[in-house]
C-alpha cells in the first residue's frame, strides 16, 4: 500500500507552516504524528498534494506549568505524556488515558495535538479535554486565538479549525488537588477505538460529590459532555440508584453508530456502564 504522490515540506516555525498552508491551499495538510493520516493516505482515502510536517518546529513539544494551567505543546507525543512527572502528578487522568491509546509504538509517534485536532470521534483525548475544561490555541493567518474544547467539535472530522490554522497547544486548568478521576474505556483489543468510554473528573466534600464533569468517547459523531448526568450526581453519595439515574441520563445523549463494535443498543448500554464505573472509581480516588 503506497500513498499517492505529494510534495513534502518541513517548516521550522509555526509562522512558516501557516504561510505554507495558506499558500498551498486546500490540497495541503499538516502532518503531526501521522498515525491517522498516513494510514488514510495508504488507503487513498486521503490524497493531499502537499504535506507540511510539523516535526521541524521547535517549541510546540513538551509539557509546562503556566500559573494555574498546564500547557501541552501540540507535538507532545502520548509517550511523552506517559513519561511526564508533571502529568502524573497534576493531571493523572491524562496518564491513565494515554496508556489505553493504541499501542506502545503508536504512542511514540502519535501526538496529543493530532489526537484532539483531527476530529475523529474515536479518539480518546477530545472527550477528556472537554471534561477538563481545556482550551486549544490555534495559530493561523489572522493571528492566534483560543477555542474551548467544548465548542471545538462540530461533527465527525469537522472542527472549528479554519483553513490555514494549526492547533499549537492545549491549555488545561489544573484540577483541584485531591480530585478524583477515571477514564473507563471498553475496547475489543489493544489498539482498538473505544466501543464506549467515559471520562470523569470530580471533587468530593463530606462524602458527597461537590463538582463533577463527565465526558463520553465514540458514542456520537463528536465527543460529548454529559452535563445532565453530572448534575444528577452532584450532592449525592453516589448510591446505586443515583448511578443508574446518571447512566440513563448519559445514555439519553448518546447516538453511536452500529458497527463492528456492536449494535446501537449495546454500545449505549455499555456506555452507561462505563459512566457508572468511572464515577465509582473517581470517587474512590478523591481525597
Amino acid at each position, binding site marked *: 500500500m*503506497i500513498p499517492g504522490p505529494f510534495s513534502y515540506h518541513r517548516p521550522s516555525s509555526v509562522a512558516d507552516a501557516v504561510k505554507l498552508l495558506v499558500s498551498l491551499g486546500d490540497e495541503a495538510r499538516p502532518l503531526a504524528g501521522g498515525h491517522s493520516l498516513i494510514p488514510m493516505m495508504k488507503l487513498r482515502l486521503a490524497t493531499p498534494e502537499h504535506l507540511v510536517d510539523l516535526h521541524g518546529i521547535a517549541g510546540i513539544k513538551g509539557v509546562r506549568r503556566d500559573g494555574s494551567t498546564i500547557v501541552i505543546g501540540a507535538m507532545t507525543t502520548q509517550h511523552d505524556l506517559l513519561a511526564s512527572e508533571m502529568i502524573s502528578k497534576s493531571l493523572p487522568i491524562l496518564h491513565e488515558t494515554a496508556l489505553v491509546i493504541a499501542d506502545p509504538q503508536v504512542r511514540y509517534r502519535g501526538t496529543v495535538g493530532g489526537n484532539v485536532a483531527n476530529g475523529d470521534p474515536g479518539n480518546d483525548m477530545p472527550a477528556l479535554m472537554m471534561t477538563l475544561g481545556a482550551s486549544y490555541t490555534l495559530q493561523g493567518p489572522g493571528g492566534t486565538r483560543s477555542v474551548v474544547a467544548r465548542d471545538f467539535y462540530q461533527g465527525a472530522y469537522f472542527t472549528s479549525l479554519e483553513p490555514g490554522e494549526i492547533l499549537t497547544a492545549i491549555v488545561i486548568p489544573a484540577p483541584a488537588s485531591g480530585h478524583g478521576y477515571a477514564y473507563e474505556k471498553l475496547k475489543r483489543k489493544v489498539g482498538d477505538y473505544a466501543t464506549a468510554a467515559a471520562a470523569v473528573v470530580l471533587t468530593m466534600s463530606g462524602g458527597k460529590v461537590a463538582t463533577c464533569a463527565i465526558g463520553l468517547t465514540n458514542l456520537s459523531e463528536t465527543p460529548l459532555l454529559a452535563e445532565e448526568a453530572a448534575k444528577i450526581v452532584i450532592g449525592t453519595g453516589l448510591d446505586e440508584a443515583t448511578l443508574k439515574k446518571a447512566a440513563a441520563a448519559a445514555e439519553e445523549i448518546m447516538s453511536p453508530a452500529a458497527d463492528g463494535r456492536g449494535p446501537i443498543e449495546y454500545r449505549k448500554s455499555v456506555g452507561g456502564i462505563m459512566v457508572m464505573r468511572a464515577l465509582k472509581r473517581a470517587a474512590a480516588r478523591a481525597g
Partner: protein
Amino acid sequence: MAKTHITMKVNGAEVEGLVEPRTLLVHFIRENLQLTGTHIGCETTHCGACTIDIDGMSVKSCTMFAVQAQGCEIMTIEGVANADGTLSALQEGFRMMHGLQCGFCTPGMILRAQRLLQENASPSEEEIRMGISGNICRCTGYQNIVKAIQYAAAKINGTEFKEAAE
C-alpha cells in the same frame, strides 16, 4: 515526483538514498538498503512486524515516510547482534525459550523488546505483555516470547532466570 536526497545512520553506518516523499521508511530499508530483516506484515500499523528503533523510539516503519528519517539514527534487526557476532541477550532468549515458530514477527518483537528493556530493565510479566502489545504473533500464543524477554532481562541484569510455573 521529484526525488529527495536523504541521509541517516542505520546500524552504525551512514547511508543515503534518493526517495520520493511518499516512500515509506520500511520500503526504503528493505528495497534501497536491502535490509530485508525488517518485515512487512499488515501495512496498516497493527502488526508491528516492521518495528525498528529510531532515535530511542520503537516505531512502525510502515507508518513513517523515509524523508522524515533524515538525520536519524536507526537500528534494525541486522544491527542487534553483539559486535563480535555472538547473539544478543534477546536473540539468545528467543532461541533458548523457543520464542518463535515461523519467525515472521521476530525482528519486530526483538527490536520492541530491546527498547522495552532499555526503558525498564526488570519488567513484570504484565509490563512485558503490555510492552509488546503492538506486536502480533500468530504462532506462539506469546507465552514463549514473554519467557524469552524475561530470559534476556535476567541475563542483562546478571540475575538468575526462573521459569514461572504454568
